[in-house]
């Protein structure tokens, strides 16, 4: 049963592309007629509740990271994160800036990093195909890493931003 579910979730991935940074402008060509991401069954959805993949397209300032973590926690397992561009890997062009996040992996588990200072659609499709293989083989377990060592991620997050009183998302249950 689990194999069928993995196969299905590989063949039909729904995006929550959060339009952070400059990568957002790279995604529309992926949906339009030239590249047509829908062939893989991938399409944009409106809310984190309905989405499986979280695309972080570009640098993350602290203000955006706060919204990204909240959206990530509102998504439902199994959820995957794709880091677009070198800014998500080690801060890229803003490597020594006081305001941007250097390594997104410290705050939310990222399954695939796509190099390039905004990867072109071909690179994005390559990443999608790789993600599909990983899901089918069951390796794309970023969401389980988030649950297992939640304390690690949470400490990093608290170092960078404070969760306000109305955060209202209870901690992921540690099992």
């Amino acid at each position, binding site marked *: *049963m689990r194999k*069928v*579910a*993995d196969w*299905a*979730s590989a*063949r*039909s991935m729904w995006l929550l592309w959060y339009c952070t940074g400059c990568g957002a402008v790279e995604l529309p060509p992926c949906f*339009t*007629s030239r590249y*047509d991401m*829908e*062939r*893989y*069954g991938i399409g944009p*959805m*409106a*809310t984190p*509740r*309905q989405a*499986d993949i979280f695309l972080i397209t570009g640098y993350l300032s602290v203000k955006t990271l706060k919204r990204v973590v909240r959206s990530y926690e509102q*998504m*439902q*397992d*199994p959820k995957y994160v794709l880091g677009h561009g070198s800014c998500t890997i080690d801060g890229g062009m803003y490597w020594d800036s006081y305001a941007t996040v250097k390594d997104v992996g410290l705050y939310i588990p990222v399954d695939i990093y796509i190099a390039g200072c905004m990867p072109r659609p071909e690179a994005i499709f390559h990443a999608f195909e790789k993600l599909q293989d990983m899901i089918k083989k069951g390796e794309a377990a970023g969401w389980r890493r988030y649950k297992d060592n939640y304390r690690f991620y949470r400490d990093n997050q608290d170092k960078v931003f404070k969760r306000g009183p109305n955060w209202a998302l209870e901690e992921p249950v540690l099992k």
Partner: protein
Amino acid sequence: MAWSTQTWVMAFLAPIIVFMAGHLFLGIARKVTARIHRRIGPPVIQQYIDVMKLFGKRESTTHGWVQDMGALFAVIGVIVAALFIPIGGDAVLSFKGDLIVLAYILVIAPLGMALGTGSTGNPNSAIGVSRGLMLMMAYELPFAMVLVSVILYYDTASLAEIVEAQGSFKWAILALPFSAVAADISLQAMLGEKPFDQPVAPSEIASGPMVEFGGKYLGMLMVWHAMAIVVEAGLFVNLFLGGGAVFSGSGVLPLIGNIGVWLVLTLVMFLVSVLINGVFGRFKMGQSLRFYWGFPTLLALIGLAWVVLNNLEVIY
């Protein structure tokens, strides 16, 4: 009221047929829309994969038992509607299922779902549902006139008899052209295709009622949407296109033939609205009310007047 075994078989077969057909139609519709945009589009079975993925998700969040009930109601309503619609000529529930009762049954699902979405506490879902109900008020006027004109023309409110009366290609669309066109226009809003998809507008209100539904709840809503499409388009086919009763005679073979014809006709009707959906933007709510209470209502009135005069043997 002993039900023959054939009825019980059909009673469980009908929802399955409608379920499979619904997702197949949606897959075809996505392929056709993609072709309109000159792109390849997803495989036709994409809709089945989506539903499997949604039910395969490891976790689905709910805001309480009322949201669960909302999702349940959506599926119940559409299954009950599927049971009442004659598929391929013979009414599943052989009792003389009434057209007016059916009109009310079609409302169980939206109202039940409205209950579930309302309890999620997200304003987007409440706005989406209130738009859905307003839209229903808009297209219900011409649709009610069409229903009445068909009932008066065939002098029976039972869908099964209407389908029998249209046997061997004496389709009602030839007899009541105006009502048929008005019904098709209101079908556009019933199926929720652009320009009347305000209730689930993804960009404006974050997909309306489905905003807080994830995992299996979203799966159940998608099942509801797929089956509702087949039921509503199928209703139009039964009313105006002879309900697919092409092969007469009892036994299994003509039954399968009839069901096949009925499914093809339903697909054609659905694709008509999908093609319109491909090229239209989205109306505002006020515009859709003015539109629906203007031209389609006029058409439906002409159809109704024609039937009433016809009944009085004034015309011939």
